[in-house]
């Protein structure tokens, strides 16, 4: 499977399983689908039939709320049956909303932000001490970088010269309530990582060639961070850059139909849709009262008098 095909599969499964489960964080999964796809299609070393293989590259999803992106990837690559994805969020399932190490292929459970990168730092240190050649990858959210513990780990990684560690920040510029640029914003994220001693690569997080090139780079004595500019809700126009879709799931009707058909409009060659092979004929369309293409950020309606909420250009 090519990275383009895998990325599309991540998006399509995610629409389906959030639709069925009422699960949150579809926007956060869609923004990092390309990152996950390039990592697992072209970069990481792993053996689906032997999830704990010693020589594998480690992967920690520090933004654990996008667990579906990892579950889908692992299922598509044969770590467990694809059908199991439909149990996401369900009673008795292995697939909790935030990522769980009880699932084959998942190296660490996360969900509370700012933990995964610390786990990854520890894994990278152990690999160095044991003279092992595998690498450790971790994906963080940009909102996650609000957490002070992220910067504790960033300092440690730089100090211990962990050139076997790669962090990717899914910089979709949005977090739970608002744009990052008006939530604890204090300057460029790339500049921050640079000042913490990391080798920073800034790129378009939906550009597979750029991701491939960056993810295979190595610089002796320095950890790498890829600040990947992405679009929250990518590939589904009415979800893009709309904070509503951090929590909302595609409901029956225009939301689900519109999401599926948006994906079919960008389906790469050679990939099958297991749920709606030809998209949805006669989709329900959003009515005049549909809550669509509106600004749902907190900053749109938050007007304190003691400081100026930043204007953000979308």
């Amino acid at each position, binding site marked *: 499977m090519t990275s383009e095909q895998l990325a599309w599969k991540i998006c399509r499964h995610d629409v389906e399983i959030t639709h069925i489960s009422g699960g949150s964080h579809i926007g956060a999964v869609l923004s990092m689908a390309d990152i996950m796809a390039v990592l697992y299609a072209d970069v990481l070393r792993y053996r689906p039939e032997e999830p704990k293989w010693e020589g594998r590259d480690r992967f*920690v999803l520090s933004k654990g709320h996008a667990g579906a992106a990892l579950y889908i990837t692992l299922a598509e690559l044969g770590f467990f049956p694809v059908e199991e994805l439909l149990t996401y969020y369900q009673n008795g399932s292995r697939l909790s909303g935030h990522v769980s*190490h009880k699932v084959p292929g998942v*190296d*660490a*459970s*996360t*969900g*509370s932000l*700012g*933990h*995964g*990168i*610390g*786990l*990854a*730092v*520890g*894994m*990278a*240190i*152990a*690999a160095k*001490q*044991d003279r092992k050649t595998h690498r450790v990858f971790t994906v963080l959210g940009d909102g996650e970088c609000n957490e*002070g*513990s992220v910067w*504790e*780990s960033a*300092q*440690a990684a730089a*100090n*211990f010269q962990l050139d076997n560690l790669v962090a990717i920040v899914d910089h979709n510029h949005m977090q739970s309530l608002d744009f990052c640029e008006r939530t604890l914003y204090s300057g460029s994220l790339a500049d921050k990582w640079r000042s913490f001693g990391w080798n920073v690569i800034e790129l378009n997080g939906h550009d597979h060639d750029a991701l491939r090139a960056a993810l295979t780079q190595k610089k002796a004595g320095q950890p790498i961070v890829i600040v990947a500019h992405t679009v929250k809700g990518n590939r589904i126009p009415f979800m893009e850059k709309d904070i509503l879709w951090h929590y909302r799931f595609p409901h029956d009707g225009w939301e689900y139909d519109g999401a599926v058909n948006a994906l079919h409009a960008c389906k790469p060659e050679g990939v099958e849709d297991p749920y709606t092979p030809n998209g949805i004929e006669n989709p329900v369309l959003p009515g005049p009262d549909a809550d669509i293409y509106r600004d749902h950020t907190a900053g749109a309606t938050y007007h304190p008098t003691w400081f100026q909420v930043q204007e953000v250009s979308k």
Partner: protein
Amino acid sequence: MRDGFIRTVLELAKTDRNIEMVTGDLGFGVLKPFWEAVPDQFINAGIAEQNMTSMAAGMALEGKTVYTYSIGNFPTLRCLEQIRNDCAYHEANVKIVCVGGGFVYGSLGMSHHATEDLAVMRSLPGIAVFAPADQAEAAAVARATAGYPGTCYIRLGRGGEKKVRESIEHFQVGKALPVQEGSGVAIFTTGDIYGEAAEAAVLLEEAGIRPTLYTFPTVKPIDRETILDCACRHELIVTCEEHNILGGLGTAVAEVLAESSAAAQLLRLGIEGSYCTAVGDQKYLRRLYGLTGEQIAQRILKELA
């Protein structure tokens, strides 16, 4: 106790390269032998306990047994969620070492009083909790925790504790250790408050009561067997700890007794009331909270009267 513990971990580390010591920028004068002897098994994680703990968990998931070292509340409360999610939930071999349980750092002020640590650590599933009384117990705990699967919490004193016994014959995780057999009253202690309890025992004996005395180097899993056995043979069980009265050894013993049909009374001695605003050393603060040997003896005599 602290030095003996570190010395024992170092002995173990010399023969097992997977044993590591990670400090949160503390241990001046204590950890030097460790980093000099086994530098590849020592890391200073800086003043960053959250990362120290997640990092230790990550190392443990790769096969290491990692001791995290700091003082007071820094290795526990400061990074509680990292302990819960990254260490305990992953069953990671992280052994959290706190130097300065209770009022060891008394004069440094409230921030440095580790007086709720046992309760908080005890409440987390998947964590064994230890508070040795002296050098020998500390060494035994060091050896036991190195081979005990999963996450452990070890609360240490700083040094100069009263020696409990010459040597420990059979140390077992989850087993209390007898000091002396008596009748009427059984005193259970954990950590270095043992010295005060031992003094109380002498005073009680002078008053005609020879108490049974046990140390509990393991607070969790709690030794139900010893508690229930003592509860059948004594009219009064006394728990003694340099810890808040809520959630520590006294609570653990109360939980066992409450679910039994034992008739013994329970007297829990510990820190009661609000946070400590007084300034003073360990001995001074113990007196303030009624935890010196003399006060313990008086409280027991009053209870028996």
